[in-house]
């Protein structure tokens, strides 16, 4: 099992470095490439849209954390845990539906 996991990880690294296209230019060689220049004044204004995305990310990210303990105890929680998790996902889904329809995911 360990060898398989190791193999997949190493294989992926190897494959991307072998097969992936390599186009190098100045911007790309910077340590961070998130669309921001590295050396700017911190008193910069940025779009309020980032704020909404960040809040939504935090919300759904934290909710996704609940899946991990459930996944670990999946067998011991049994059918009960499964149904509870389905309900949880349903409620999450309603949240996502709300955000979607409200236009929280639209950038423009």
């Amino acid at each position, binding site marked *: 099992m360990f060898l398989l996991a190791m193999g997949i990880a190493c294989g992926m690294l190897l494959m991307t470095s072998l097969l992936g296209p390599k186009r190098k230019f100045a911007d790309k060689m910077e340590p961070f490439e998130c669309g921001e220049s590295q050396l700017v004044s911190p008193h910069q204004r940025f779009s309020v849209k980032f704020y909404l995305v960040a809040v939504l990310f935090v919300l759904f990210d934290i909710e996704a954390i609940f899946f991990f303990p459930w996944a670990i*105890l999946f*067998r*011991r*929680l*049994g059918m*009960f*845990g499964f149904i509870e998790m389905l309900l949880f996902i349903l*409620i999450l889904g*309603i949240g996502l*539906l*709300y955000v979607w*329809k*409200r236009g929280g995911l639209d950038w423009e």
Partner: protein
Amino acid sequence: MEPILAPESIDLIALAPVIVLSVFAMMVLVLDLWGGRNKTLLVFISLVGLLMTAISAFAKHPLPAYSFNDSYIVDHLSLFFICIFTLSSALTILLSVEYNEREDIRAGEYYALILFCTVGMILLASSTDMIMIFLGIEIVSICLYVLTGIRRNDHRSNEAALKYFLLGAFATGFLLYGMTLVYGSTGSTNLFKIAEFIQNPSAQSNPLLLMGLVLLIIGLGFKVASAPFHMWAPDVYQGAPTPVTAFMAVGPKAAAFAAFFRVFAEAFPEMSPSWETLLSIIAVLSMFVGNLGAIMQTNIKRMLAFSSISHAGYILIAIIAKSSLGSSALLFYMLSYTFMTFGAFGIVIILGRKGEENLEIENYSGLAYKHPIIALSMTIFLLSLGGLPPFAGFVAKFYIFSAAIQEGLLTLVIIAVLNSAISFYYYLKVVVFMYMKESEAEFKISLTPMTLFVILIGVIGTINLGIFPNTIIALASH
């Protein structure tokens, strides 16, 4: 590996009101996405949901019943509180329809938030575990922060929401730190287990536990808007939309008092000498700050905010009395307070104008000549808030005072009676303006059937509880 968490410890029927209301709240939230500008359907569904919640609360027999490993309880206290919560939320929604139209509040989330807030209130009144209490308080508070700031284009509403949020988050910190210390020194977050642990006298003198108690009092004291943790109340009450103000003054406050009662009367009765003095100081301060502060106000919403601070002081006396008489006095007070507060705010709403105008007490001059019935109902609510017989406020105060005297809290009662006398000054000031001054401007009354219904319920409840209190007292004193 054997399965963990036996599902028997989870009693979903006991939890029925919370589940029903959550489902309805989500339904309102989702339906709003397709509903367009007309919110009548949402109002209808919310009201049906609240009714179903109140009915489903009585599904569990026999009482008391427990769920989630003793962290959730169904007993007479919680049932009575659930009735008060659903009533106050329904009255809020009825008041909101016309108001939202006038103030151009188009968000359908408004109704969903009120329902979610009610879910939190039910959890708060039914929890016997500090983690659950914390969750309940957070659900209630977060909904209220949003509701306070729902008039997005009004700077006063924004200011109120920001202030409430910052101070509320701060108070939550105190509350949580208090819970941590209590957990650290007693080894449990469950109120029953804490009560058991505390029976050992050597455990009671633990300084960490005392510190935890003080922090709990600060956190909960903030949520019920008692002095000296009241600074947010006038600004928030004034800035919030008027129906939300009425809601805040009744529902969430009652829920916080329920938690107050559970924590102090059920978990720490053995340590009452150490928290009684502290709560008495807070009660006396609240009464004086509330009543003396209200005298200075010219805005009716601010005046009612200070009056609600002073009422928090009276209610704290019921918690200090902590006997079964104290708990039924608390319940009776909260119910009568619901009727008179919603009635008074209902009249504030129908006299208000777009943009939260016409809220100065001077604007009420001469109301009695133009609209005698409205002026009369306002007089009834104000006199009842002051505690004059034959209205509900009198019986409620009388009940609390007799519970306190039975516990030997004579000084507190004397101070409270003196304060009631002070409070008449500012309640009667409005009455004087309505009856004895000439009106300067025309009154524009926007009376819709729903608002009228709320005021009618307020009048009937206030008078009925004042003259025939026995049925409700019997229900409250189970």
